């Protein structure tokens, strides 16, 4: 009797938690299929018209492509810089290495708004025009600490002898890094990359403040929302969500599944 009670309580608890997290998303996705003009109850019937509208919307599609590009390019740069920083701090004795590690991770604790305002000031001072490139710079700033932290934590001391063996067999420092260290750390580098992609993909504040004519998807969605609620925004929101889920699923299946084995 008591067992069933605890079991019921824990199921209810789990149900409530997941409901709390996913109900808004579920509602968003549900009303993207709304057959009608308003994404609010009652649900009138199933229709794909809003998805059609999304794919027909040139501005939205352009923003989607922009977002995709910014996410990929900024994540590649963040991973590259993060890897190089992690390699240096893990393998060489650098002055004030604890401080340098702290400085590299510090941007994680600063709000995106402050980072965006700081960058905006700097860009203005140097007379650099706002563009997708400046958005990308902002995303490198926020994702570099994450990439550094993930890659640095996976550089164990047991890798040192492996790199030493490569050097012993005649590899130059550059070859050790590209043929041994990076491939050895590939799972964590890819994990850092994909997480970075999802963060960049969803990011609004920096993209909003640092872009001008070409905008990323979250900014475009925001301008859609200004003209009122519309199932089209639900549809594009669902697509954004779907992409994030897909990236995470790929990550989980290919990388985390693999590291468990070895």
């Amino acid at each position, binding site marked *: 009797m008591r067992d069933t009670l605890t079991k019921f309580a824990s199921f209810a608890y789990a149900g409530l938690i997941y409901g709390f997290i996913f109900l808004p998303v579920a509602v968003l996705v549900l009303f993207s299929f709304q057959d009608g003009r308003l994404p609010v109850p009652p649900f009138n019937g199933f229709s794909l018209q809003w998805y059609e509208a999304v794919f027909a919307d040139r501005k939205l599609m352009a923003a989607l492509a922009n977002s995709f590009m910014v996410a990929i390019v900024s994540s590649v740069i963040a991973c590259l810089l993060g890897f190089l920083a992690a390699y240096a701090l893990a393998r060489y004795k650098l002055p004030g290495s604890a401080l340098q590690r702290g400085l590299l991770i510090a941007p994680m604790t600063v709000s995106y708004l402050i980072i965006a305002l700081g960058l905006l000031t700097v860009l203005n001072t140097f007379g650099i025009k706002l563009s997708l490139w400046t958005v990308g710079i902002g995303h490198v700033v926020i994702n570099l600490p994450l990439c550094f932290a993930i890659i640095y934590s996976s550089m164990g001391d*047991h890798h040192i*002898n*492996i790199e*030493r*063996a*490569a*050097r*012993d*067999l*005649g*590899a*130059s420092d550059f*070859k050790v890094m590209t*043929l*041994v260290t990076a*491939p*050895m750390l*590939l799972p964590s580098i890819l994990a850092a990359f994909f997480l970075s992609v999802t963060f960049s993909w969803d990011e609004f504040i920096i993209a909003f403040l640092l872009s001008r004519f070409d905008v990323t998807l979250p900014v475009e969605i925001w301008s859609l929302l200004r003209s009122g609620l519309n199932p089209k925004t639900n549809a594009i929101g669902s697509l954004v969500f779907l992409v994030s889920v897909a990236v995470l699923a790929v990550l989980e299946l290919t990388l985390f599944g693999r590291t468990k084995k*070895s």
Partner: protein
Amino acid sequence: MTAAVSVANATKTFGAFTALNDVSLDIRAGEFIVLLGPSGCGKTTLLSILGGFQSPTKGRVTIAGKDMTSVPPARRPTTTMFQDYALFPHMKLRDNVGFGLRMRGMAKAERDEKALGFLDLVGLKASADKKPHELSGGQRQRVALARALAVDPDVLLLDEPLGALDLKLRRQMQDELKAIQKRVGTTFVHVTHDQEEAMAIADRIVVMNQGRIEDFGPPADIYMRPRSVFSAGFMGEVNFIPGTVKAVEGASATVETAVGSMTLPVASFTAAAPVAGQAVTLCIRPEHFRRAGQADGPTVSLGEATITGSAFFGTHYRRHLKPTAAPDLSIVAHMPQSTAVADGQIVPLAVNLADIVALPAGR
């Protein structure tokens, strides 16, 4: 290929700690050398200096007649086989073994063929497409050996390669290492703290302690004719009997000990010629005790002793004895399986004269 290695007056200090203290060593081409000693004796430091991973604070390293003291590992004719194997986890075995050849600019097809040859040498040709995590410890070890040999080094350095294997596999790998070394002819320098392993594989053993070389020679010499008290004790069980040189007359010396006076040939003093008045330590292996009358050759009597304890070891009895003349001395003797003696019984002790080694005391 193979080459002679020479270390001259190598010293390595880390701050106030001296890891290697004025070590000189000459290794002939094609020899299987074992650096033997307890942890912290400097054997791994010496190996790192040979491999180029550390440079000596003082002294020189010469390989094949060329000064290598400050040449980086990649440009030395040496390769190292690491204790943890250090295989590349993301590469197939054939790519692991072929890595050094790839660094030397060999084309893929050619190096694959050569890598397969070396995998065949260590009996893993069939697993060429596997990755290291699919292998057992002993197999990984063989891959590490193949990888190190594939670049045709003059000298192969092995850093406690068998340490992680269980006893049975270790004995098997010792035989294989020895056989492979004979086949390829490369100079092997192998580090271990296991004296049985050292005796099983070495052409010559270097016994090290506290950064110095204590003894250097073929296994039988190191065991039977040790040149230091440390070396005698490290190579196996031994009884130390303190004594004093009373007189030296020509080719023999008289030594006074608690268990009686004895006259030893000067050849028994392996470390330094005896000097009258000198304090010495006599070293006698437990298996060298004879019952009076059963020995072959001249013997020395050590008086009588009481048996205080006994254990059967299969090949022999290991017995503790207390000499009647020196009750504070405890002696360990191995006696044949057939001896039927009881605790408390008094037996006469004797040793073949040639089996006694006398060393300066306190070293």
